[in-house]
């Protein structure tokens, strides 16, 4: 660990190693040519835009996921972690993860049924975002785009 951050100025509660790793080397980055579902997420506050692609099997499990666009470290890492996680999962379970992440980040109005019933694994790396209310929208951008893609909502989702 860099000694410059061994004090109260440490921001590694937000920028954890896993977050920085996914921000620098986002997984599943790029357009998914054979996507069955797609939605845009826009954060008008900073102008960030990302497009999330999903290929959903007939049995409603996620065959493939990808994303493209530009964003801050938090939004890119969140999109990377999301796509990494959901491939292979049934969409019903993806919905559970969505609800759990929204709850964990303290998003107002998040469905609070069955809190803590799901192991968030690597997604816990996003926990630090809770302490930075202006950045919660960055972390939720990809998740809301995914939700919108699965709902087949035609309009871009906005985190504003």
């Amino acid at each position, binding site marked *: 660990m860099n000694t410059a*951050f061994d004090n109260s100025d440490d921001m590694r509660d937000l920028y954890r190693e896993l977050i920085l790793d996914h921000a620098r080397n986002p997984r599943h980055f790029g357009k998914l040519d054979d996507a069955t579902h797609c939605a845009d997420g826009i954060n008008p*506050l*900073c*102008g960030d835009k990302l497009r999330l692609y999903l290929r959903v099997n007939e049995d409603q499990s996620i065959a493939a996921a990808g994303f493209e666009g*530009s964003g*801050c*470290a938090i939004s890119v890492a969140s999109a990377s972690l999301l796509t990494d996680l959901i491939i292979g999962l049934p969409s019903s379970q993806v919905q559970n993860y969505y609800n759990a992440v929204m709850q964990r980040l303290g998003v107002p109005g998040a469905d609070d049924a069955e809190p803590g019933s799901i192991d968030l694994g690597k997604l816990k790396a996003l926990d630090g975002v809770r302490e930075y209310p202006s950045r919660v929208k960055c972390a939720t951008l990809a998740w809301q785009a995914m939700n919108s893609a699965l709902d087949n909502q035609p309009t871009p989702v906005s985190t504003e």
Partner: protein
Amino acid sequence: MTNAQENRSNEACVENYRQDFPALQQTISGHPLVYLDSASSAQQPACVIDTVAEYQRNDHSNVHRGVHTLSHRATEAYEGARDKIQGFINAASRNEIINTSGTTESINLVAQSYCRPLLSAGDKILATELEHHSNIVPWQLVCEQTGAELLVVPIDDRGQLNLDEFDNLLTDEVRFVAIGHVSNALGTINPVKEIVEKAHALDIPVLVDGAQGVPHMQIDVQDLGCDFYAFSGHKMYGPTGTGILYGREKLLEAMPPYKGGGDMIIEVSFDGTVFNELPYKFEAGTPNISGVIGLGAAVDYLQSVGLQQIAQHESWLLDYMTREISKIDGIRLFGTAENKASVQSFLLDDIHAHDLGTILDHQGVAIRTGHHCAMPVMSFFRIPGTARASLALYNNAADIDQLIVALKKAQQLFA
């Protein structure tokens, strides 16, 4: 006096001004607050805060309506502020000073009340690529309503207007020119006086968006020669929700009211309504009385410091900031015009501006990040946004030094 001596004397003055601003006397995450976001909204000196509080405590009533003492006091203070603002920008008459909610409303007022009746299909309005959204969208709306077209003067890679292209676009089809005095995203000072002269040679009226001009330089609307000058109170150390539209009396006289309601009428019946005189014709409804009185106090404050002193100090500090920030490897500057005021936009390595903003905030440094409501400028540079440090009369070299320390920490974190 040598340069070094001059800088020291400036620093001594600035230390006094800092004491005038209660908000600056706090720490953020254990660091003294370094406020470098005054282009978004400037902090208010105690004299403004106290004037507003004093009014609320003792003098509040509605203006222009009552015969009682409090209404009289409120009216005196409210109209007194108008006189101060008239003097501050050297308008020829107090009738030319219209109170609005801010620059945005001032520009919308001109678009709807002056331009809309004047425009027909095929007419052109000329704006620039540097404009804030509030000096773009009102013109797009009036173009949609009338079939007119919005033309855009392009910028070069330093963020300066292409004046040759301005000359080319300024034809007799142009009915109106709208231009920012100082770019909020890049700090470019536009040659507005020259632009007004060229437009007036073709009898084309000009609106200047002065939101970023008024806090940083002495404005003389008669010397600039513009037809309209719009600005906001909260960027010049006054309260939010206040703003001014200066307009030449002859033009304002001929314009229809923008909003209807109380205070803007002389007589109302269902057979017809007689509108009030200037400036009240454009001030429908109970105005932001306390805010306007606070704005008057902000004018007093600015004049007590002196706009020349402010301009000199901020110019020195902008040079210092630009020089120091340029020493950091991996810094990219946006907006390097010859003639600039108080703003530097930048990016560091490939760190997103939003991340920079959060990390700097953790070091007590408040900057603005994002597109700064100037998306066309961001598109020009092919970036989603920048980090922007903007200066006010209360900033000093120590603020810049803390900015540099914080930027280096961000760089280490993302290394």
